């Protein structure tokens, strides 16, 4: 088994955690009045970014020739995920709100891990190609 497949497996696992987490254990809090705040949309954006990375990871597992390019695509996608909560999409102001306390730090760590995995995968694929 080529070593360059391993980061794709890790990426798939991490993106599944993001997908599941954004809707459950890492989701922002629901508003009492049923309205949807900015933090809800931040969660949805993270869900989308998680799905994108899952698809890229699955493709990297299946497509050998395109693997390096797919890893390269995962890099800016991961950076987008890091910038989303609290950066590109604002969250609640109070630091004790769930979106700030749990969702933001957890997602930043997950996407940072995915960035490292993507970089590793890209470097490994290039080395194998040589």
């Amino acid at each position: 088994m080529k070593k360059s497949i391993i980061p794709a497996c890790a990426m798939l696992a991490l993106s599944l955690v993001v997908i599941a987490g954004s809707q459950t254990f890492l989701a922002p809090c629901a508003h009492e009045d049923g309205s949807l705040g900015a933090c809800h949309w931040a969660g949805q954006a993270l869900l989308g970014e998680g799905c994108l990375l899952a698809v890229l990871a699955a493709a990297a597992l299946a497509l050998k020739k395109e693997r390096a390019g797919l890893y390269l695509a995962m890099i800016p996608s991961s950076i987008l995920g890091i910038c989303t909560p609290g950066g590109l999409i604002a969250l609640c102001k109070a630091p004790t709100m769930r979106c700030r306390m749990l969702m933001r730090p957890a997602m930043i760590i997950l996407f940072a891990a995915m960035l490292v995995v993507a970089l590793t995968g890209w470097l490994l694929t290039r080395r194998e190609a040589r």
Partner: protein
Amino acid sequence: MGASRLPFKNLLRKPGRTAALLLLTALLAAAVFGGSLVIGSLRSGLDSLEARLGADIIVLPSSAESKVSFKNILLQGTTGAFYMDASVLDQVRAAQGVEIAAPQTFLASLKADCCAVKVQIIGIDPETDFIVKPWIDESYSHELGDMEVVVGCNVTAGVGETLKIYDQHTHVVARLAETGTGLDTAVYCSLDTMKKLLAAAEAKGVTHQISSDTDDLISAVYVKVKDGWDVGLVNTWLNGHVRKVTAVRARSMFTDVSDSLAGISRAVTGLIGAVWALALIVLLIAFAMMIHERRREFAVLRLLGVSRRGLRAEILAETGLCSLAGALLGVGIAAAGVFPFTTLIETRLGLPYLTPSAVTVLRLASVTLLATLLVGGVAGAWAAARLSRVDPGVALREGE
């Protein structure tokens, strides 16, 4: 490649074996650093609370809820409001052994919008207050004027902004440093400002739970006992002579907090000790197996003229490098798991929680590194000692 780079080559070119050893030492380091950080933060929080409290005795309304509410305000930042007549203050000041008695009045805000939290509003007497005033003075040296407020670090209003409380516009003049206690979500104002806010709250239908002929309401009196006087005796006198109040010694109010902290501390320390012992045993086994697996390689090195001491140095270099890398990785993992989630940990534990200073954190990280290197070093040294029992001649002949 110089021979001194042989340990690096051995580690880099056997990534599976190296990764397993790295992971093990990283887990050890993460447990030690993470656990120490949490304990250290809890201790810092408690110290901060005790420092902020400053009083010997706290006089509260005699209702059972007020004591619980007061503790929750300080520990968890939950809001509360309870009142007694302001005349209590004069009675307390008249008591023998009382050096200073400073009043505070509490009010809880309404939740303004879907993304806000309720804040605790605390009115202080700037002339006599010795609890909050010194702390405010660190950030704001002027007197608190009419409708001026100072906010705790977790209140989402910046300096210069307007904070609307019961439709009254207050002006934020300063922001306080973090304490790791519930006081971080409080807003501080003068007693005069508090009177206006109480009136506005009453207009909004918020009752003060006390029937009184006077508009002067206070929630707590902080007492500093004169030097040489027994705090217990003064406390007892206050309970016996001032009606409708409960006087509590400040220290005893948070005994259960200290006990909880001690319990958590013991549990975490026990966990760290167990992880440390387990890691040592597993590393001993792992390194012994590695030596056994590589005995032919070591026999070849002896054949090529590496002395026993040189072989031991080679093994210790490998185990040392592994331990160091694992320790750094573990500290990083623990830091990533603790620092970004400080607020969550504080909220879930319900105890004062204050991240220690950078110097303390660095000290904890250094101790973790040393502890991990020690475990790796002991395991490596034991493996190296076992190596001396390997006969190069016999090892070379294996598999012939």
